């Protein structure tokens, strides 16, 4: 009897703590909103800041790349439409699908190219911006592990068209999870921002919506002054061997120069590794500035070490790789990309080979609502 009563008290205390934890940030946010409402200064809502409010839009990532791997050309056209549908002041439906073909010479044929259309729902999610510190997401979402999968994956964003070797670690079979996620960003001091994401994903074996059953979190600290961000990620698999994975990320854009430095490390029972990338836009070149300002040079070094459990989407042997690329921006959303890379691996990991890439990336964006394109 005593034990039951104690358990009831513990439950009540836990409920109370949960209620306080949920209510305090909401009340604080509400009081901030009220004070901002009384302030005739800047508007807080994106609807209020624009007459008519936000409109649905379609943005399409397009790429036509050719990869030369070990002397064999792979033609790789890709279409990736993103649809954004804002609802009211606090809701957003967003989706991204990818349709791609890897056309390669068919073995045994006289050079005929063959490939299959691969379809993937990268994300299809409903976001609710609960307050300035919290966004609740349900549906299918990109797994928030490290920075590449969520932020740098789109073909028009990435500086080198090949994926980092460690990308499949902890991002699941498709880079996405199916379930719920809490995320947000806020200032803890004028020059310090915190961003976070925590999620639960359920098992789905239905292609193209496959995902692992897992839970995890990512947190980062961003310093806007020196433009430095660093953080860590963690994931616990809730199926198979219930293994853990963790990773770290770092990014730095030194304000005086157009240089991007990014790095990630990830480790799981499937393997571990890192990549370090630097991209420099020649807009400050002292010579031929007019011609070179649209040119970007990129370099990436990466290493993968096999783990205790083999994952078919990861390299089958320890692998080192470096890549060097040159991109030319016709516009911010239209560019020519090229790169050369050299892979060093045992035959089980694909062996030593050169990888060349040539291609174009383009990202048109249009409104899906009458009048949405008016200035």
């Amino acid at each position, binding site marked *: 009897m005593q034990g039951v009563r104690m358990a009831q008290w513990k439950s009540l205390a836990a409920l109370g703590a949960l209620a306080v934890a949920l209510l305090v940030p909401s009340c604080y946010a509400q009081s901030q909103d009220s004070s901002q409402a009384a302030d005739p*200064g*800047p*508007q*807080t809502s*994106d*609807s209020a*800041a*624009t*007459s*008519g*409010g*936000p*409109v*649905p*839009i379609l943005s399409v990532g397009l790429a036509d790349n050719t990869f030369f791997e070990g002397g064999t050309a792979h033609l790789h056209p890709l279409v990736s439409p993103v649809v*954004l549908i*804002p609802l009211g002041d606090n809701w*957003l439906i*967003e989706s991204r699908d990818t349709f791609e073909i890897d056309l390669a010479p068919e073995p045994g044929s006289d050079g005929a190219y063959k490939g299959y259309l691969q379809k993937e729902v990268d994300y299809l999610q409903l*976001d609710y*911006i609960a307050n*300035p*510190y919290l*966004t609740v*997401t349900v549906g299918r979402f990109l797994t928030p592990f490290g920075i590449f999968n*969520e*932020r*740098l994956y789109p073909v*028009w*964003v990435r500086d080198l068209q090949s994926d980092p070797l460690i990308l499949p670690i902890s991002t699941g079979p498709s880079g996405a999870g199916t379930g719920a996620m809490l*995320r*947000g*960003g*806020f*200032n803890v001091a004028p020059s310090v*921002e915190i*961003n*976070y*994401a925590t999620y639960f994903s359920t098992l789905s074996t239905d292609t193209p919506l496959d995902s692992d059953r897992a839970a995890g979190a990512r947190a*980062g600290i*961003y310093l*806007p002054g020196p*433009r430095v*961000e660093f953080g860590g990620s963690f994931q616990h698999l809730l199926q198979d061997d219930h293994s853990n994975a963790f990773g770290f990320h770092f*990014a730095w*854009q030194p304000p005086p120069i157009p240089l*991007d430095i990014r790095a990630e490390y990830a480790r799981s029972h499937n393997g571990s590794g890192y990549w370090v990338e630097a991209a420099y*836009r020649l807009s400050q070149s002292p010579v031929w500035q007019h011609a070179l300002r649209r040119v970007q040079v990129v370099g990436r070094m990466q290493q993968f070490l096999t783990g205790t459990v083999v994952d078919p989407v990861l390299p089958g042997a320890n692998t080192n790789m470096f890549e060097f690329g040159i991109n030319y*921006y016709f*516009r*911010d*959303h239209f560019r020519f990309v090229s790169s050369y890379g050299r892979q060093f691996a045992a035959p089980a990991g694909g062996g030593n080979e050169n990888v060349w890439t040539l291609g174009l990336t383009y990202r048109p*964006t249009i*409104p899906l*609502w009458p*009048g*949405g*394109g*008016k*200035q």
Partner: protein
Amino acid sequence: MRRFILPVALLLGSGASLLVGLAAGQEHDTKAVNDSAASAKTSIQHDEDSDRVEGERRFHANCGRCHQTPHKFPPRMMATIVRHMRVRATITDEDMRLILKYMTQ
């Protein structure tokens, strides 16, 4: 008749001085109101300018973290894009507000 001249002159004089005083006062009041309005306008302009500068700084700091800084889209499209990036890149509420203001001006 003469005895009316002085009072009438005094009345007219006082009336004139009253009118001049009132006019001067009104002018002073108008000037004060104008000064106050001009001051408020200058203050708002100053706030707008500082918001724009801050918005541009945050635009380059936040958007440049992942990709080349994009061109400006029409305001209603920009509102959707900024909301999307708020979720995707976990930028703060304040950053979103200032970036949107800068990108829609």
